[in-house]
């Protein structure tokens, strides 16, 4: 039995502690907003926050989440978090998604990045690219991701 704090709620799950957070979320808890893309921390589709840090949940065992807070796309974009909300709204406004499969991970990376920005600082184009470089989008939505991250940053300034 492992205790997990996910999106502010406590869960107890009966899975091996070596099980990745991704599969605990998806298969055990039915929270499917977090996506499986590569299983090897190469594509970023599975990105969630662990104590506010963007991590790849496909290679992070639930043992590593003991005593920490997991935040997933479901909570980041439910309107309760100002940064997540700004990112979500920018994603819709700029019509970023095509197939949409990687976008949960993209949004979680963008949200962690903007949360770490010093107050009032606008990220440069190079900083945005660097922050988002770990997330693959095979549809090629990168042009709109750049615009949406910059726009969300402006909203939050």
């Amino acid at each position, binding site marked *: 039995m492992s205790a997990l704090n996910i999106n502010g709620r406590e869960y107890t799950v009966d899975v*091996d502690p070596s*099980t*990745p957070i991704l*599969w605990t979320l*998806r*298969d*055990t808890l*039915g929270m*499917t*907003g*977090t*996506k*499986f*893309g*590569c*299983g*090897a921390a*190469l*594509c970023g*589709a599975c990105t969630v926050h662990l104590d506010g840090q963007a991590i790849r949940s496909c290679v992070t065992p639930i043992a590593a989440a003991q005593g920490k807070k997991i935040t*997933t*796309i*479901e909570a980041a*974009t*439910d309107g309760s978090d100002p940064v997540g909300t700004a990112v*979500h709204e920018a*994603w*819709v*406004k700029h*019509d*970023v*998604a*095509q*197939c*949409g*499969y*990687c*976008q*949960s991970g993209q*949004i979680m990376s963008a949200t962690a990045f903007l949360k770490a920005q010093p107050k009032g600082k606008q990220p440069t184009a190079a900083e*945005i*690219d*660097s922050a*988002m*470089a*770990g*997330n*693959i*989008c*095979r*549809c*090629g*939505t*990168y*042009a*709109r*991701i*750049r615009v949406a991250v910059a726009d969300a940053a402006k909203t939050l300034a």
Partner: protein
Amino acid sequence: MLNEIFPDEIPRALQHMLEHDQADGPTTLPRRSFLKIVGIGGLALGAFPHLALAQEANGGAAAPLKPNQQPSAFVQIAPNGEVTVTINRLEFGQGVQTSLPMILAEELDADWSLVRARNGNGDAAYQDPIFGVHLTGGSNSIKNSYTQYRELGARARAMLLAAAAARWNVDANSLSTQAGTVLGPAGRKASYGELAEAAMALPVPEKVTLKDPKEFRIIGHATTRIDAKAKSSGQQDFGIDMHLPGQLTAVVAHPPVFGARIASLDDSAARATQGVKAVLRVPLDGGAEGVAVLADGYWQAKLARDALKLEWDLASVEKVDSEKQLLQYRELAGQPGPLRFDADMTPLATATHQLEAEFVFPYLAHAPMEPLNCTVQLNEGRAELWVGTQFPGGDSAAAAKVLNLKPEQIQMNVQTAGGGFGRRGVPTGDFVVLACEVAKAARAAGLNAPVRTLWSREDDIKGGYYRPMHLHRARIGFDESGKVLAWDHALVGQSILTGTVFGGRVKNGIDPTATEGMRDPYPLPMRLTVHHPNVNVPILWWRSVGSTHTAFVMETLIDEIARTTKQDPVAYRMKLFADQSPRHRAALQLAVDKSEYGKRPLPAGHAWGVAVHESFSSVVAYVVQASLEDGRPVLHQVTAGVHCNLVVNPRSVEAQVQGAALMGLSMCLPGGAITLKDGVVQQSNFADFSVPRITDMPEIAVHIVPSAEPPTGMGEPGLPPLAPAFANAIASLTGKPLRELPFKMT
């Protein structure tokens, strides 16, 4: 894909496929079962009825309209005015879940803010209206369904008008509509939601008048995707997200070499893994064999699969080696073979300029972000499938064959897919058939639970069904003015269509999906010899199919002729297009104007590159700006000129061009290749089959040529001209042409 297939050939091919093993099974759904299936939602309150139902209710005659012309199957209007439009295609990123409803809503005169979308199922209504089969491919969704969805919307609107006319006892011709409301005399108003139920009882008009495109207020206007919110909040469900009660997940061990069978299996460790329910041998396509591990979830199944001790019988299978294969292709290119074009090559020997070139293109994986998956629930005499597929028609037939069922015993639920690029439209239905084999084996082993068969990324990258490897060789003779006197060309690559249900399209030993994009529209005297070797690597169409390699060959060689004869590459192309290719001219001119090609000074070390190509009935021209950074080609800016006739959703066209351009770039950059050694695919995940990241993305501006002609598709045409435009820019910097993808800088 399939752009050259004649409308009647696919159904005939499928019919043949069905009859082959289902001689006694009906191949089309009887009308009554159509009604029942539509009842999955189509007969909910406020839905439009099937014509037959309405006419039966009215004592009318049998329906003259086909299922795909019936508003009932495509539009539901709820009492609160919400209009739900059913799409007859797979939504896998291309935006049809927005653009098809836009078309219908335009003629329905709906309130766009109340329009929703949902996926169609395997019902006959959702077949491609031209091809007569369930299919998403060949950039055909808008092209083939534009008139269909307009007429559906117009019919539904006419029925709402008739209902209002009856309610107010006035002539329907005196009524008008405005964004979801019928307006009548003396300020009368009724919302579509109020009228829907009464409209449902009325007959469906066969003939309707469509709007003058000048009056369009939805079509042609930049519209945010209907699914934008769901896809920006983790709420969009994909096939992989299926979660049925008691569902098991299967992960399959595939042989390391295509077609191999099991020599020995020790599954004791796998069976001992927590959560594992079964370990089952399953047949794979191409006569191969695999081992399916079924567990409560993916992670346990994968761990157990990795714990299998497997030995494979590799003695009897061809073990492909890419390096040796290239030598064989070179040898073949020099041999006589079937001719696609047969111009006189005599002038070649005496031409002032002679150019010889060889091009090499590797295998390519599609690597859609959502790994392949299919969920199957077997019951007595019935199967239900949930899968993101481009080809539910073929998959249903293939599933029926595997499961010994009749096609009407297969319920196909098309799921929104996380990309596909061709990989989800497989003539053999490979990953759907595999899921059926697994479910069948599970049931035989006493497991009646629904089974989701899920591929790991490694299974996907190593799993074949690649864009075929190709070798091209050209010998071109031209004069001082750049006039081509003779162009002798050989093309070597596996045939995609041969041996599939589409094999009838292979004529005289030539697969049109390999040669599409060659020569035209340039008025060149070409002799094109084609070789289709058999190789033990499963292959498939990959976004823009033949044009992935033919556009590169044509557009870099055209550029080289221009460079050799000291002509501007734009002016040279325009000269060749003359008056014969107005859409090519317009697209290229737009890209030239918007990029300020040749007018704007470029930073030191940067160069312009140009290419234009028609595929799937649309033309895309790129003017790019590129440079070399430490010897590495870098693409900085792309300006697109697009000719796709009338545009339904400009935002969607822009997105498709941005995405296709990036996928075109993926062919150029290091890591964009699948290679084999001793039969084994050498790449396995995004570490070694790399795809572009945000840091590779150039600035890109998309411009569309205005047109009122019926729309052509844009899912694929943005891909082909990107790589040659980039290569042409680099070649103008180095003076050396690039003739291999990914780019090899020597």
